[in-house]
């Protein structure tokens, strides 16, 4: 699992500027709508069975009255050395050559091992078949599966948008560039805290920002090599 072979495919990555994040959760809403993420209802949510592809983690720092609130949007980190991948017995989660950590819903048998081995706890499970109150099912994104019961799901970096962006670039006979692909969360962020692009292209915004002195990765010491880069808050 250690060596990776070089590829000329784009390597998708995200940068999140924590200085700009206000914790408004617009990204969460945008993600739910874009990706047909089910709403489980209050009762299930109380049991801890919400499905979120992105969540805003909220932490408090300091003692009252000098309390600071910190927000951190966390989604699948698309680790280059993802702990979830080798443990899946059926290859339902694997690494694409574009650096995405893929989840194939109709291959998933639901061992939930991947979720247990994810240090970021970003994987959600469909414990039941979800009911979409009419007419909400009419708002389903036709480009995204509606997951059935018993499978794992998680952030895909809006792979449907990536595929569309790549197809557009191919039609125009060029490489993908910044702006071709914008995941729903990035598009929606009102404070422009999120950036998305091809980190293998040194001219892209994410590649430049990833070299910032503020750049960190979540639980970096685990060696998972996440593809989501956080820009720490300046003091």
């Amino acid at each position: 699992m250690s060596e990776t072979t070089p590829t000329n495919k784009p390597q998708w990555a995200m940068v999140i500027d924590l200085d700009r994040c206000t914790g408004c959760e617009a990204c969460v809403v945008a993600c739910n709508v874009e990706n047909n993420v089910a709403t489980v209802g209050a009762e299930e949510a109380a049991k801890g069975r919400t499905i979120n592809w992105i969540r805003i983690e909220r932490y408090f720092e300091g003692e009252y009255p000098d309390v600071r609130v910190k927000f951190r949007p966390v989604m699948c980190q698309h680790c280059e050395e993802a702990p979830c991948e080798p443990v899946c017995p059926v290859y339902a989660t694997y690494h694409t050559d574009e650096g995405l950590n893929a989840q194939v819903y109709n291959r998933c048998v639901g061992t939930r091992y991947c979720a247990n081995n994810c240090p970021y706890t970003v994987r959600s499970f469909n414990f039941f078949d979800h009911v979409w109150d009419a007419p909400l099912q009419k708002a389903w994104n036709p480009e995204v599966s509606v997951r059935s019961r018993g499978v794992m799901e998680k952030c895909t970096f809006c792979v449907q948008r990536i595929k569309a962006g790549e197809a557009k670039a191919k039609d125009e006979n060029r490489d993908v560039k910044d702006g071709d692909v914008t995941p729903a969360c990035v598009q929606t962020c009102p404070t422009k805290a999120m950036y998305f692009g091809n980190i293998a292209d040194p001219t892209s915004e994410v590649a430049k920002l990833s070299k910032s002195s503020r750049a960190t990765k979540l639980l970096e010491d685990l060696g998972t090599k996440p593809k989501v880069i956080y820009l720490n808050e300046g003091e």
Partner: protein
Amino acid sequence: MTQPILAIFADSQEAVATARALRRAGLTRLELLSEEPLHAAIADEEPKSRIGIFAVLGGVLGAGAALWLTIGTAKGLAINTGGMPVVSGWAYGIIVFEVTMLSAIIAALARMIWEAGLARPGAMQHYDAAVTDNKIVLVVNCEDEQTRQTAEQLLADTNAEMIGK
């Protein structure tokens, strides 16, 4: 080839001694049937068992099959792992170990059944249920009438009850 003689003994030592006497008289196609293994008996004269060798062979075969199952299929199917190596020696080693042991067990079982002449038609020929009544049954296969008479004479001197005369 005539019908064999079945001699039923109550005492295992007498049965073994008779078997040895018959053997000395040139009757070698004998079988001693008993309810528990007679360790000191003519078991020593049985051909050497090849079950161990077959277990090893089965293991080697299993290891080969497992190597194909893991490395061969992983390479053949070219599953996309996004640049990660498809073949993982450590993990595949575990699969190879288990399959090796499994096929060694199955090979040993197959060889045992074959060696013991079990599960084949006619396996129950020349048997007497006295065996499971703690008796020893000596099955004497006679080539011709002459040897048959020799056997009958020898057996007549013992306490055995004879069947199939």
